[in-house]
């Protein structure tokens, strides 16, 4: 692929500058950091009392919060990216310069990825600092794994958001459909899977395999694995996953998320080329 890293770098800086001045982005950073902060503070109140920390409210809530907020951040920021520029005409103007659509796409993706990473680093940094300060016992390496999974989840949702954005002329439409996609990923797919499991008495292998099709489920498994080093908390399915895949499981989950990013970006590239700037 004939791409210029000079152009991509420039577009990344432009995206970062845009993100920094984007009210949505700042809102997300504040909300994410605030929620993480309050959760850590409330959840850690017990550590001093019981002197033993566990996988209780704090960690579970962190996983849940990450699972809900990060896809929403990635999806909406991604959805705004192309559609908003298409809507207000800047997309046409930028592409009228010596810039290829691939460079524009990668510049947007990497720029927004870095912006999301900074939000995660701040949120997770504050949370980890508080946990360590209050005597938490999880290791920093485990925390880095969790952060890595969270970042990959952000990338997947961002790539999905950009894909949806490439399909719409209006930013409102893209954001609307991205929120719907978020609901599907967060609730409806799990509800469907839960109902299917009950109705058809799915086997352990079937449940685990089905879950791998949802990047949010992949993140959830990876996050629990990062924190606990095992998956008994997920019952027989978790035990099956650990026994079947062993130490390769974490890498496999990461590869799956990275695969999702690649597939989504590749599809966006095709759709974007086909549709053009309007």
């Amino acid at each position: 692929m004939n791409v210029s890293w000079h152009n991509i770098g420039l577009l990344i800086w432009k995206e970062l500058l845009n993100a920094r001045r984007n009210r949505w982005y700042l809102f997300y950073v504040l909300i994410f950091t605030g929620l993480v902060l309050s959760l850590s503070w409330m959840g850690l109140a017990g550590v001093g009392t019981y002197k033993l920390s566990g996988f209780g409210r704090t960690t579970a809530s962190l996983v849940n919060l990450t699972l809900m907020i990060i896809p929403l951040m990635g999806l909406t920021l991604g959805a705004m990216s192309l559609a908003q520029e298409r809507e207000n005409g800047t997309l046409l103007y930028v592409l009228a310069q010596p810039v290829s659509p691939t460079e524009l796409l990668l510049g947007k993706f990497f720029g927004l990825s870095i912006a999301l990473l900074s939000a995660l680093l701040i949120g997770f940094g504050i949370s980890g600092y508080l946990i360590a300060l209050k005597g938490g016992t999880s290791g920093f390496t485990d925390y880095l794994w969790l952060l890595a999974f969270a970042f990959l989840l952000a990338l997947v949702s961002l790539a999905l958001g950009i894909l949806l954005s490439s399909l719409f002329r209006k930013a409102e439409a893209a954001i609307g459909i991205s929120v719907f996609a978020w609901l599907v990923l967060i609730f409806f797919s799990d509800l469907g899977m839960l109902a299917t499991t009950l109705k058809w008495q799915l086997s352990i292998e079937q449940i685990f395999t089905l879950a791998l099709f949802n990047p949010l489920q992949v993140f959830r498994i990876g996050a629990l694995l990062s924190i606990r080093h095992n998956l008994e908390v997920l019952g027989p399915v978790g035990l099956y996953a650990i026994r079947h895949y062993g130490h390769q499981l974490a890498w496999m989950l990461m590869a799956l998320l990275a695969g999702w990013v690649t597939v989504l970006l590749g599809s966006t590239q095709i759709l974007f080329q086909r549709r053009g700037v309007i």
Partner: protein
Amino acid sequence: MQIAQYRWLWMFVFAWLNIVPSQARILMVDGAQLQAKLDAASPGDTVLVNSGVYSGHFVIRHSVHLLGKGWPVLDGQHQGTVLTVEAPDVEIQGLRILNSGINLADEDAGISINAPGAVIHHNRLERVLFGLYLRQAHGSRLRYNIIQGYRELDIPRRGDLIRCWYSDRLLIEHNRLTSGRDLIVWFTRNSRVAHNDIRNARYGIHIMYSTDCTVEENLLLNNSVGTYVMYSKRIQLRRNTIAYNRTASGFGIGLKDLDDCRIEENLVVDNRVGIFVDNSPRDVRSSMTYRHNVLAYNDVGLNLLSFVTRSQILDNSFIDNYQQVGITGSGLLQGNRWEGNYWSDYVGFDEDGDGRGDLPYRSEKLFEDLLLRNEHLRFFAYSPVIQAINFAARAFPVVKPQPKLEDPSPRIRPMIPQGLPFPEQTRAQQSRYPYLVLLLAGSVIIFLSARRTLKNKSRPADIHKTGKDWIMTTPPSSSRKQAFNIEVEDVNKSFGHHRVLSDVSFSVQEGEAVALWGSNGAGKTTMLRCILGLLPYEGRIQINGFDMLRQGKQARFHVGFVPQEIRFHDTLTVEETIHFYARLKRVPAATINQWLGRVGLLEARRKEVKALSGGMRQRLALAIALLADPPILLLDEPTANLDIRSRDEFLALLRELKEEGRTIVYSSHRLDEVIPFADRVLVLDQGKLIADVPPLEVHQYLHQRGMLRLTVDSSQTEQALHVLNEAGLKAQTNGRGIKIYLDSTQKVRPLELLIRSGVKVLDFDYLFQN
């Protein structure tokens, strides 16, 4: 020998300690004489073993005190049992016992005790299959021993680090056990297991077929099961700390087929199941009591088989267990007494301030109910959908399950027993500084992105204004040496089913100024976008040999473009905007302010582009288009947003640019922009190129169809319609006026007809059809 020299001192010490009876001897062991000295000793003698390594297997056949000095090593060399006690009332202290055999069938042990009254204390046993193995060793005391099994063996292949069979009145306390299987107390009465620290084992403490035993203040961490008590009576589990016991079993406390046991003040944290109860109590005359325990952060706090009844579950604290109470099997737990417990998920209140909730606590989560139907659903734990399900069950009582239990007076605050054993450092206390690094890294990214990274580095002092006019008279450089032409061949473009361009072909030679002319919707803008390679199309477009679909980016280095509607990134300033595009075009930063000065935007360079007027935006766009001194300019209705003066200046600039030899293609629907400036005019009509003519011949293509609207006095409308229709003009009325569709060249004729017929025309206008 130094010890022999101080024999009198040893004698004094032992006499003072009242350990050695006055008639007892002290036998010193050095070198390879250990078994011989043990055999030679009489009951009550002390065998004092100096530091050193004693390999082999040793048997104590007399009631002696075997004491080590300087941690002598008894090395079993991975064969059989290292030390066997066959005599009663033997004391063993201060030995380091290593490398027993690993044969489970032979029950190879560190120390095997087959007689009552043994006192085994302050020894270190390492790499032993079984540690201390007691049979019929009533009244023995095992204290302060450190025992470590074979870490490299899988748990099923390990032995029990302490195993006691048929031995009553035992005292097992302050031992530290790691990497073994269990601490087993079977077929035992009146024994006490206290203050032991057991980690990384299978069942930390395993009691079976025993009665009247106490398990107290032990620390049981990271085992498969913390403690499992089975088939026993009157066992007390008190004040133990039991945490991180996981794996498939993963019970903190497992209780099976018990009667009249008391489970009190235990801290049970982060196990898969905090307390698991199976068929206890089993006798209808007995009961079980669970009181003042803290069950926190477990996957399931307390799990009972559905037929468990007659249990008193009082004053416990259930804190943040994913499932506070679980049931195995179908049924409810109403046959037990639940009272005064703290429930962290209790949503009631305490209005009278008595420390008890005014509403009962009911365990009625829908997901937990679903789990009873299919255990595989636990896979969805920690998923937002579970919270949604439970919330839905609360909101819609129709799907609310029947409560598993009801606590009529739940506590408002948890009760935490004090003074329980805690690990010194369960896991290494973590440093908080790495987290600060994360925080800083995130902040630095935001800080860097906040800087005006696209800012100009040249100074305003470099700029010399050319006057008030923003139109430049000379471009900053004229480095164009290469000839550039545009070739368009059989280009078709559709949006959906709507054909916008049909078989358009033309070419533009170097230095030509070509106007795309036509009414709105004729396809001019689409044509320009296709030339730029911004839209996919059928056919072929080349700029100096670059195919615009495949090599559009390379070609655009040589093209300056001004769109009809100028839109920039509103979050950037004028300066950032022009620098951004300059860097995309690889234009040196030094010339940028010069361009800004020449288009009259120098003063506005700090403004955000959203604050610019339409005309200022047009100037900025022109400056950007000319930044790289491109040989080709594509302009889409470039004067559409300009006032009259700016428009005249702009057309003058175009003339200059053309004279410099630039190739210019521009779209317009205004004849006054086309005729004086263009070399050729490409007439587009409904997406088709209908003519390629000199400017002066463009008039002949003006006979476009349109609608003539006439307003006549209402009393003359019928007369006007008659006149017009008589002349074959197909006039219609909508009640307010008369409409006639006709060529633009014919638009005066209806007026003449009506005036001649005496109809007074009050108003008229003519609208071109798109």
